[in-house]
């Protein structure tokens, strides 16, 4: 079987990300246009220049279409973001309450109680992560057509809050070690965006299958 040259295909990451942000009914046309211009530019200016052009236009497309999507429905987008934030607070409070209540009530007199308690504590970051993915799912399902705008906005807000809180703590205590924990706080926003991307991808595939 004859194998195609890798450079004949546009940058994969950009081609993967664009449909996450563009309306499902336009994704195919936008990707096709980018592909068509990429191939023509590759013949004229070479693979590197064509890849640079593709990445630049893919990024511009994401920014323009995402901004247009927000301007088209600012109220529902804001409600989805605020709702997602409140849902996240609720979901994150559940694992400690639920699991600690169980260990305290039913395992108090069991000799392995303390070990179980430690396991619950160790598992909390995983539970938070899964809870954040779930919030990403729910928010993306509610914000049909603007899944990535809503989940990314929520993610950016959480990142900004984590950075602001860490800087504030460092300013008060003078202990700069808090800054090393900042990247850890980015896992929840990342989980939310992953949840949004999964829902968006699933919807895009469904739409493509339906239109074929």
């Amino acid at each position, binding site marked *: 079987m004859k194998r195609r040259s890798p450079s004949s295909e546009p940058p994969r990451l950009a081609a993967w990300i664009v449909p996450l942000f563009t309306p499902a009914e*336009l994704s*195919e046309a936008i990707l096709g*246009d980018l592909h068509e211009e990429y191939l023509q530019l590759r013949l004229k200016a070479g693979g590197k220049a064509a890849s640079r052009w593709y990445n630049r236009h893919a990024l511009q497309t994401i920014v323009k279409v995402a901004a247009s999507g927000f301007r088209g429905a600012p109220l529902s987008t804001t409600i989805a973001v605020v709702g997602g934030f409140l849902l996240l607070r609720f979901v994150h409070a559940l694992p400690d309450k639920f699991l600690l209540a169980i260990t305290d009530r039913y395992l108090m007199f069991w000799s392995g109680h303390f070990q179980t308690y430690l396991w619950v504590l160790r598992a909390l970051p995983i539970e938070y992560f899964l809870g954040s993915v779930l919030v990403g799912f729910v928010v993306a399902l509610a914000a049909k057509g603007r899944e990535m705008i809503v989940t990314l906005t929520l993610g950016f807000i959480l990142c900004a809050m984590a950075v602001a809180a860490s800087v504030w703590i460092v300013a008060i205590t003078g202990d700069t070690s808090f800054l090393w924990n900042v990247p850890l706080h980015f896992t929840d926003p990342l989980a939310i965006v992953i949840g949004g991307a999964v829902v968006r991808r699933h919807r895009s595939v469904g739409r493509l299958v339906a239109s074929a």
Partner: protein
Amino acid sequence: MTDRDYLGEFEHIVILALLRLTDRAYGVTVRREIESRTKRDVSIGAVYATLDRLEKKGYVKSWRGEPTPERGGRAKRFFGVTAAGIAAANRTQQAFESMVEGLDLIGSYS
């Protein structure tokens, strides 16, 4: 949309490009038409964001073409201007011309 709605500058340019291209208007040709005539750098995203907005306003209609190999097997989406779109373009053009009328733009204000 009411009959008093005017087009934004880029919306106006996009509709004029669609009218020029007639049945050949899709993302790539619209972008190139605007770039070659206005000498400004236009992204595909800007074109599609505007086309999507115009379609929601009822000024533009679109239909799916056939998938082609040079597009990675993806179909084109062709665009055309509706009667409401032509009316909006005329209204915007008349408003613009009436504002310019009587002004010697280059001579007086350069």
